């Protein structure tokens, strides 16, 4: 496998993105912003502080991960599916020296890059609102990429396992939404029953939120563990997108 060839797939996706970003940018971008405004300003009127942090700041820092993760998920579910099935882009690419392994890696790297783009944009926005403690938030970018990488892998696995585009909603509703709601974006999990905390340990969304919040609020307790969780997770599941993709498209 050559990384260089995987990057050619990345370049193709980037090229198309730069042509179409106006129509797709809003999708991932406005949703977290609406959460921020509705819950941060709305609910924030009643809930003043969490762990000594103003509620809007608490949410804003969680929204960074949310935006980044959803970007990778949309890209590597809908985006990948459209390229694979509707546009037959993969068929075209696989007729060139690029192998399926390289193609799969290219897709994952592109999904991770989308996370980076959206994560960074949200950082700019909430910095503009004065909700960020220090420039250190910028050091979270590699880990935003890592979160994106993990979720891109998961998304490609899902795309290859589910029967078609109509069943993606099962994935969003039954897996991603609960992960998101119990990721401590909106409320801390500390005072909840033990099983919620145990579930949180297995929730990659939760670890990603903790990382961004740590960097944003200058609180690095336990952050190494969160990073290692995502890193080891990403390494463990790394072979599966390729194996399942091969099963799906090469008879």
């Amino acid at each position, binding site marked *: 496998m050559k990384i260089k060839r995987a990057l050619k797939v990345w370049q193709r996706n980037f090229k*198309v993105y730069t042509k179409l970003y106006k129509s797709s940018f809003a999708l991932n971008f406005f949703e977290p912003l609406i959460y921020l405004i509705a819950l941060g300003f709305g609910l924030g009127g009643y809930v003043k502080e969490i762990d000594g942090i103003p509620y809007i700041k608490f949410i804003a820092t969680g929204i960074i991960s949310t935006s980044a993760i959803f970007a990778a998920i949309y890209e590597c579910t809908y985006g990948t599916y459209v390229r694979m099935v509707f546009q037959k882009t993969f068929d*075209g690419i*696989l*007729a*060139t*020296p690029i*192998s399926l392994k390289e193609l799969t890696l290219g897709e994952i790297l592109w999904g991770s890059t989308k996370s980076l783009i959206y994560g960074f944009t949200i950082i700019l926005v909430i910095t503009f609102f004065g909700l960020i403690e220090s420039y250190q938030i910028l050091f979270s970018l590699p880990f935003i990429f890592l979160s994106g990488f993990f979720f891109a892998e998961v998304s490609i696995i899902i795309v290859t396992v589910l029967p078609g585009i109509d069943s993606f909603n099962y994935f969003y509703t039954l897996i991603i939404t609960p992960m998101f709601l119990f990721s401590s974006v909106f409320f801390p999990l500390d005072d909840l029953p033990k099983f919620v905390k145990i579930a949180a340990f297995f929730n990659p969304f939760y670890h990603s939120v903790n990382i961004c919040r740590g960097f944003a609020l200058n609180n690095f307790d336990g952050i190494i563990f969160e990073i290692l969780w995502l890193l080891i997770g990403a390494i463990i599941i790394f072979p599966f997108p390729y194996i399942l993709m091969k099963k799906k498209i*090469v*008879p």
Partner: protein
Amino acid sequence: MFIVNSKGLKKYYGTFLAVKGIDFEIKEGECFGFLGPNGAGKTTVMRMIQCFMEPSEGVLEVFGMDTKKYPSKIKEKIGVMPQENNLDPDLSVEENLIVYANYFDIKKKVAKEKGEELLRFVDMLEYKKYKIDKLSGGMKRKLVLARALINGPDLIILDEPTTGLDPQSRHNVWDMLKILKSKGKTSILTTHYMEEADNLCDRVAIMDSGLIIESGKPEELKNKYGGNLEDVYLKLTGKKLEN
């Protein structure tokens, strides 16, 4: 050395045997055709030659290299015109060529020049900036052909190159394929149009249910069995080839 060499080639889809052990050789500079109805196994053979999938059994060498061992090396020297157009709908005609060239590690500047040359060849230079959905079916097909040539391939794989085209566009594509042939390019073609095979192929292999049931020069087959290639097919299989 043969460009393609196959011995006892088999392909299973699960338990279904789609290609049942076929032998053939393709020489440099010739246009070799696989004829047969849908489901005969033509596309499966094509997809094995272009290293999209591996044979289940048997030998398949392209440029003397095993398709299982050297897929990327083989693919570097192949141009594929697939049965279904798979152009990038969000990119322009020219961008489609440049992006595709990049997969072969061809630099943008070179790709641009080469792209213009190919667009001139398929008579589409003035459509360079067009988006794909603005092109007619015939033009899309010609663009796919141009794209298949971007890496200067030594072997061109044409999977049903004119299926679905109106007669005029079909003749148009044939003319281009004839020019490529006159330049000494080796090509493999699948078709269920006997006229197409008759027009373009030096040798044909007639396939039915995963087997090659007869092969040779179109003229020889016609002399041997009488009538045109359509009649040859009917005599061999008892079936009519349908469009």
